[in-house]
């Protein structure tokens, strides 16, 4: 008898193939040790097929869809653009309409000195950029909190 036993991996491969008795390698047929090991694997693998698949004890769809609706992006970005355009048109219209009243206010910041004008413009832009950056940071923080 061939005493070179099959490796455990070989025996598992044979068990996975579910071979019939006549298809088994000669060694398995003759070696009680390997045959017993094969039988154990076959019993185990057949029993695995009978194990019921895992399932959650809660309603996954309900749980997930609630969360998805919170995180759902705006349904249509087209409406956002339409609203933004309408707002810009409205603000421009208001500014043009009230320009005669606002003119003295703008003249307060207007100077013949171009360096002074440049300074005012750059400072305004810096303050605006700082505010926008702060708004963006707050928005991201809130988004992160919502998605946690």
């Amino acid at each position, binding site marked *: 008898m061939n005493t070179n036993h099959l490796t455990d991996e070989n025996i598992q491969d044979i068990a996975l193939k579910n071979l019939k008795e006549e298809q088994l390698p000669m060694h398995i047929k003759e070696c009680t040790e390997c045959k017993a090991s094969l039988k154990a694997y076959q019993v*185990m693998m057949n029993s695995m*097929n009978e*194990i019921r698949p895992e399932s959650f004890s809660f309603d996954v769809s309900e749980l997930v869809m609630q969360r998805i609706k919170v995180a759902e992006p705006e349904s249509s970005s087209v409406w956002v653009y339409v609203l933004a355009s309408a707002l810009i048109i409205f603000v421009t219209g208001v500014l043009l309409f009230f320009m005669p009243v606002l003119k003295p206010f703008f003249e307060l910041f207007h100077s013949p000195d171009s360096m002074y004008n440049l300074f005012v413009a750059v400072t305004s832009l810096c303050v605006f950029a700082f505010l926008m950056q702060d708004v963006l940071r707050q928005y991201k923080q809130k988004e992160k909190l919502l998605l946690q």
Partner: protein
Amino acid sequence: MNNDSQSFSDKILVEKVLSGNTQAFAIIVKQTERLVAQIVRKMITNEEDQKDLVQEIYLKVYQRINTFRFQSKLSTWIGSIAYHTSINYLEKKKIPLYDIDALHENTFVQHDNAEKKLFRNETSNILNSEINKLPPIYKTLISLYHIEELPNKEIAEITGLPEGTVKSYLYRARKILKENIESNFKDQLI
């Protein structure tokens, strides 16, 4: 469902989700719930944590669905997100993923209870309880291969492990299972 029709169905669902149809996403959740359960429940036992993780997994899927390139089945991609999210959770909790020594300690601690149980349990229940004592990675691989009946290639895609490693972990897991069952339940099973 064959691969082509599966891929077609995946494409339609993904396109619908991307155009803002949340009902299509609900279908994806229904279709993949079993696979996600197989992964999450094998790794995490606490129900509240399972709830949190399931939400986190599907939220990631929803947010990243625009990055899905149809290089695998949608279910495989979702399975991969479920697997890695669960692994991250276990790592955060410092739960060993492959620790065989912990497994043996665990086996002996539970041995008395298991012996009492075996008289009223069936073979598959005993086997299932033994599978649940395996380290997280091993029990997930065993359930994906033997219960979900996924091929090694798909398990490799889900776990990100090389196919050879998946095969070798499966051999090791089955060997441990067989040895544990033989030592604990020999008379009843074989």
